[in-house]
C-alpha cells in the first residue's frame, strides 16, 4: 500500500523495509546494510546498468533484474543471495575477468579494488576461458592520471563523469563489442580541472594516480581528515600518510561543501609540500651572509626589533591562506603596539572601499541554494578554474535549468553554455555593468542615484538584464579576478546596484582560502577605529620593521614592489615555509613555518563555515607551527592576554568574535559618483589574473600540476589577433619583454594570439607594467594606479 507520504514496503532477504516510491533497490539495500556487489553503478552518476554485477531476484519476474536500474515497488520481494543470483554473480565475475590481466601484484589499486573484492566474495576460483586475452595499450592522458586500460572492465563511470560532472567529455568508448576501449581517441590530455576524480571512480586499477604511483599500498597508509587550503571552499579530504609523508589525498564526503569530489588542485596541490626549497632552520643575516640561529634567539631578536620600532613604522603583510589562529595572534601582536598596518590583500589595487565599510564579504548564500538558482551572472570570474568545486555547483544549477552569462576581461572557457558572454577591456568593465544596469531599469523602473544617460547599451546588455529580471532566484557573482582591477570598488558597487535593481543575490567569491578569516580576525587595516596602512601603503612606506608572513615573493604579491619595500625597510622578517631568491636578498631574519598540513588550526570558507583541522604530519625539520611561533613571540614581548596553551584555547576566543561579525556584501552607494576612469585609447592595458595553479605557494610547487595544460596556458603572453597583425608578431614567436621593475628584467616569453582577449590588451602572467616587444615595437602599457 502506498501511504500518503509516498512510503512503500518491500522485503529484501526476508527483511521488511520501508522506503520511498521511486527508490532504487540498490540504494534501499545500501541504506539497510545489505550488500549488493556492483561496478558500473555510482550514486552521483546516471545509471548505465551495463556490468550486470548487481543482479537480484525479484519474486514474479522471470529473469534476474539489475538492482541499480530497478525501482522498488510496493510489496516487492527481493532476494540478493538466492542460488540463481549467486550463480549469476559467479558467471559475471568470470566474464569480467576474461580479458583482465590479473596483475594485482603490480597494480596500485590492489587492496582497494572492487574487482579484487568482488572476485573474492562472489567469484569462482577458476575459469573455462582458455583463449588469448585482448591487450589494450595504455595511453598518456596527462601528468595526473596513470592509465592501464588492460585492466578496464568498461563500466563507463569515467565516461559518464566527464559528461555529467566535469561538464566536458574527454574520454569515450572507442570501437565496439569486445574490442571497445576507453580512450581520448586522439592523443590528448584529459584537461578537466576535476580530472583526478576519475581515479576514485574507476573501480579497478585502470585509472590510478600518477604522482603517487607505486608509493604505498592501501593498507600501509593512515587516513587523517584535513581541510584543503587551496581555495575559498575548503574542500574536505583525507590525507593518506605513510611514515609522516603524505602519499595522496582523497575526498571526504561533505554534501555541504565538496560532495564526494576534489578538484585537481586540492588533490595534487600537496605535492608542493615536499619541494626542495622548504626552509629548515631559522636563519639570520649578519654581515651580508646568512647564519643558522635558534628559535629562541631569533624570536628574541624579532621582539627586540619590534620594541625599538616606532609603532607607525611597523608593517605586516600576511598571506590569505593562513589559519584563523595565525591571523588572530599576529594581528593581536601588531595591534599591541598601537599599530594597524596589517593587510592580507596583497594584490588588490583599489582600496577605496576600506575606510567606511567594516562588513565582511562572502558568498551570500550556501551551495545548496546556489544549485537552485535559475540565473547566474559571472562578473570578472573564471570560476571554472578559480574555484572548480564552486563552479561545479553552478554547473549543477545549469543542469537544473539555470541561465548563465558572463562579463570578463578575457573570454573564459566555461563548461556550460552561456546566454551572453561579454569580453571587455579592464577599463571598460564599469561601462558594461552600467549598460546592464540601464537595461534593468528599463524593465524594472526605479530610482537609483546614478546617471546613466550617456551609457550606450546593446542587445547583449538587454539579454543579460532580461535574464536577471525574469528569474525567480538570480545571483550576481563577483569573481576573484575583479580584485586585481584598478576599478574594483566601482565594479563591486555596480554589481551591488545591479543585484538590488534586479532583486538578485549579490555573491562575492573570496580570493584566498581564508579571506573571511583574515577579515574576521584582524588582518585588515580598518579592523579597529584607527585606520592603518593598507598593503599598497605598507609597500610604499619607509618602515622600521616589515613582517612578511606566509606568502611567496613572486606571485602572491607584486614582486617589484616588495623588493623595493624590503630594501627600504630597516629590518625585514620573513616567516614562510619556503625560501626564495628575493627573501634571501632582502630579508634580515627568516623563520621556517609549518604548512597547513603540518599544523592545527581553522579556516572560514566562502559560506562562512568554520572548519577546524588537526596537525596531520610533523613539521619539516625545524620549522614550527605558526601559532606556536607567534605565542613564543608574544612571550618574548612580555605581552599579557596571550595566555593560550593550545589551539582549542585560542579557538574559544575566536568563536566569540565570529558570532559578533555581520556578514554582508552591501557597498557604500554614496561613492557612486566616483565611478569611471578615463580611458586613453593609445594605451595597452595589462590583464593580470589569479592563475589556477599559481594561487598558493604549495600548489605553485606541485610539479605534477605545473605540467598540466592549465598551468601552461598561463605561461604565455597573449594578445589579440588584430594586435598581433598590427605589431607583426607571429604565432608562438619568442619575444623578449623588458619590464620597468628595479633592474629592468628581461622576460623571454612566447606569444599566443587569441580571439579571447580584447584588442589593445595584453595578458602577462607576471604583471609587467611597461613592455618592449621585439626591441623595436613598443607597447605602451597603461599604468594601473
Amino acid at each position, binding site marked *: 500500500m502506498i501511504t500518503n507520504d509516498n512510503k512503500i514496503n518491500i522485503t529484501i532477504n526476508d527483511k521488511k523495509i520501508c522506503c520511498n516510491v521511486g527508490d532504487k533497490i540498490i540504494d534501499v539495500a545500501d541504506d539497510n546494510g545489505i550488500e549488493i556487489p556492483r561496478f558500473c553503478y555510482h550514486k552521483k552518476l546516471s545509471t548505465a546498468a551495463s556490468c550486470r554485477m548487481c543482479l537480484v531476484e525479484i519474486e514474479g519476474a522471470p529473469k534476474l533484474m539489475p538492482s541499480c536500474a530497478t525501482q522498488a515497488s510496493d510489496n516487492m520481494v527481493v532476494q540478493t543471495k538466492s542460488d540463481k543470483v549467486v550463480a549469476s554473480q559467479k558467471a559475471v565475475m568470470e566474464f569480467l575477468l576474461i580479458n583482465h590481466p590479473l596483475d594485482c601484484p603490480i597494480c596500485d589499486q590492489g587492496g582497494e579494488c572492487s574487482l579484487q573484492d568482488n572476485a573474492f566474495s562472489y567469484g569462482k576460483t577458476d575459469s573455462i576461458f582458455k583463449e588469448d586475452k585482448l591487450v589494450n595499450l595504455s595511453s598518456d592522458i596527462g601528468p595526473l592520471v596513470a592509465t592501464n586500460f588492460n585492466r578496464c572492465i568498461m563500466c563507463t563511470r569515467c565516461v559518464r563523469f566527464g559528461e555529467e560532472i566535469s561538464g566536458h567529455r*574527454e*574520454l569515450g568508448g572507442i*570501437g565496439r563489442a569486445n574490442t571497445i576501449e576507453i580512450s*581520448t581517441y*586522439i592523443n590528448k590530455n584529459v584537461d578537466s580541472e576535476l580530472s583526478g576524480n576519475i581515479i576514485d571512480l574507476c573501480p579497478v586499477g585502470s585509472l590510478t594516480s600518477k604522482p603517487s604511483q607505486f608509493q604505498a599500498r592501501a593498507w600501509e597508509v593512515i587516513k587523517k581528515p584535513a581541510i584543503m587550503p587551496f581555495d575559498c571552499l575548503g574542500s574536505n579530504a583525507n590525507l593518506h600518510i605513510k611514515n609522516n609523508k603524505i602519499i595522496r589525498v582523497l575526498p571526504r564526503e561533505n554534501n555541504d561543501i565538496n560532495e564526494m569530489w576534489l578538484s585537481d588542485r586540492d588533490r595534487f596541490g600537496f605535492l608542493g609540500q615536499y619541494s626542495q626549497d622548504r626552509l629548515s632552520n631559522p636563519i639570520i643575516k649578519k654581515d651580508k651572509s646568512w647564519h643558522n640561529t635558534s628559535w629562541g634567539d631569533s624570536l628574541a631578536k624579532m621582539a627586540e626589533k619590534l620594541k625599538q620600532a616606532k609603532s607607525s613604522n611597523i608593517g605586516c603583510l600576511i598571506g590569505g591562506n593562513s589559519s584563523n589562529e595565525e591571523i588572530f595572534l599576529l594581528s593581536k601582536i601588531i595591534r599591541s603596539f598601537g599599530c594597524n598596518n596589517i593587510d592580507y590583500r596583497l594584490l588588490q589595487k583599489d582600496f577605496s572601499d576600506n575606510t567606511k565599510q567594516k562588513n565582511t564579504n562572502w558568498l551570500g548564500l550556501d551551495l545548496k541554494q546556489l544549485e537552485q538558482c535559475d540565473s547566474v551572472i559571472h562578473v570578472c570570474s573564471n570560476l571554472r578554474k578559480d574555484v572548480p568545486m564552486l563552479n561545479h555547483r553552478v554547473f549543477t544549477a545549469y543542469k537544473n535549468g539555470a541561465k548563465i552569462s558572463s562579463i570578463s576581461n578575457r573570454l573564459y572557457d566555461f563548461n556550460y553554455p552561456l546566454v551572453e558572454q561579454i569580453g571587455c577591456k579592464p577599463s571598460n568593465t564599469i561601462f558594461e555593468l552600467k549598460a546592464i544596469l540601464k537595461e534593468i531599469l528599463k524593465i524594472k523602473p526605479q530610482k537609483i542615484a546614478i546617471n546613466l544617460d550617456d551609457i550606450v547599451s546593446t542587445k547583449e546588455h538587454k539579454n543579460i538584464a532580461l535574464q536577471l529580471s525574469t528569474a525567480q532566484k538570480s545571483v550576481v557573482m563577483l569573481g576573484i579576478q575583479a580584485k586585481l582591477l584598478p576599478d574594483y570598488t566601482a565594479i563591486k558597487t555596480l554589481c551591488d546596484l545591479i543585484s538590488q535593481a534586479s532583486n538578485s543575490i549579490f555573491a562575492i567569491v573570496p580570493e584566498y582560502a581564508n579571506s573571511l578569516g583574515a577579515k574576521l580576525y584582524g588582518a585588515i587595516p580598518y579592523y579597529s577605529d584607527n585606520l592603518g596602512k593598507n598593503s599598497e601603503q605598507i609597500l610604499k612606506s619607509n618602515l622600521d620593521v616589515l613582517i612578511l608572513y606566509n606568502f611567496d615573493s613572486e606571485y602572491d604579491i607584486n614582486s617589484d614592489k616588495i623588493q623595493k619595500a624590503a630594501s627600504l625597510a630597516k629590518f625585514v622578517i620573513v616567516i614562510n615555509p619556503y625560501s626564495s631568491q628575493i627573501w634571501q636578498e632582502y630579508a634580515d631574519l627568516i623563520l621556517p613555518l609549518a604548512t597547513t598540513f603540518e599544523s592545527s588550526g581553522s579556516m572560514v570558507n566562502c559560506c562562512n563555515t568554520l572548519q577546524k583541522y588537526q596537525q596531520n604530519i610533523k613539521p619539516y625539520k625545524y620549522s614550527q607551527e605558526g601559532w606556536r611561533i607567534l605565542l613564543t613571540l608574544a612571550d618574548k614581548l612580555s605581552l599579557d592576554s596571550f595566555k593560550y596553551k593550545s589551539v582549542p584555547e585560542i579557538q574559544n576566543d575566536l568563536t566569540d568574535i565570529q558570532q559578533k561579525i555581520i556578514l554582508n556584501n552591501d557597498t557604500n552607494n554614496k561613492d557612486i559618483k566616483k565611478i569611471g576612469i578615463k580611458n586613453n585609447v593609445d594605451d595597452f592595458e595589462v590583464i593580470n589574473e589569479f592563475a589556477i595553479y599559481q594561487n598558493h605557494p604549495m600548489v605553485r610547487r606541485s610539479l605534477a600540476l605545473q605540467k598540466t595544460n592549465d598551468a601552461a596556458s598561463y605561461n604565455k603572453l597573449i594578445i589579440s589577433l588584430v594586435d598581433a597583425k598590427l605589431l607583426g608578431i607571429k604565432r608562438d614567436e619568442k619575444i623578449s619583454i623588458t619590464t620597468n621593475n628595479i633592474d629592468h628584467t628581461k622576460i623571454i616569453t612566447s606569444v599566443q594570439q587569441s580571439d579571447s582577449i580584447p584588442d589593445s590588451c595584453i595578458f602577462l602572467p607576471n604583471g609587467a607594467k611597461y613592455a618592449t616587444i621585439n626591441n623595436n615595437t613598443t607597447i605602451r602599457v597603461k599604468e594601473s594606479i
Partner: protein
Amino acid sequence: MINENSKGQIDKWIAKYPKGKQRSAVIAALRIMQEQNKGFLTVELMDAVADYLSMDKIAVYEVASFYSVFETKPVAPNTISICTNISCMLSGSDDIVKYVEKKLKTKIGSNTDDNRIFLKEEEECLAGCCGAPMMQVNHKYHTNLTRDKVDKILADLK
C-alpha cells in the same frame, strides 16, 4: 571543412529532429562528410561535425569508430565490401574473397597498390541474402556472384 553542398544536406537531416536535438543527425552528418572526402573521415572532419552539431568531439569519435560504415583511416576512393555472413558463406563467398584478393593483389582491409580500390573489412549481412553470394561496390549491390561476374565488375571499375 564542411562544404556548402554537405552543409545543405546536413541541415536537411537536422531539420528532421526536434529543435535542440541536432546531435541526432550525427550519423547522417558523418556519412555526408565521408562522401565529401571520397571515402574516409579524418579527425578534422569529425571535429567539424562535432562543432556543427554542438557535440563533444569524443562523442563523434565514438560514433565514427562504432559503425563499420565509417572509415577513420585513409582508404582508396572505390570501396568493395564482400558479404561473408551465413547465406553468402554457404553460397561460396569465401571463394569470391580469395579470388578478389588474388586479382587485386591485396588483402581484405587494405587498399590496392595503385590506391584505387579499398577492400573493406569483413562485412556482416548486407541484407541481400536472396542473391547470395553478393558484394557491394561503391553503394551498388551485385548479386549471384561468379568469378566471371567479378571480372566484369572489376573491369568496369577501371
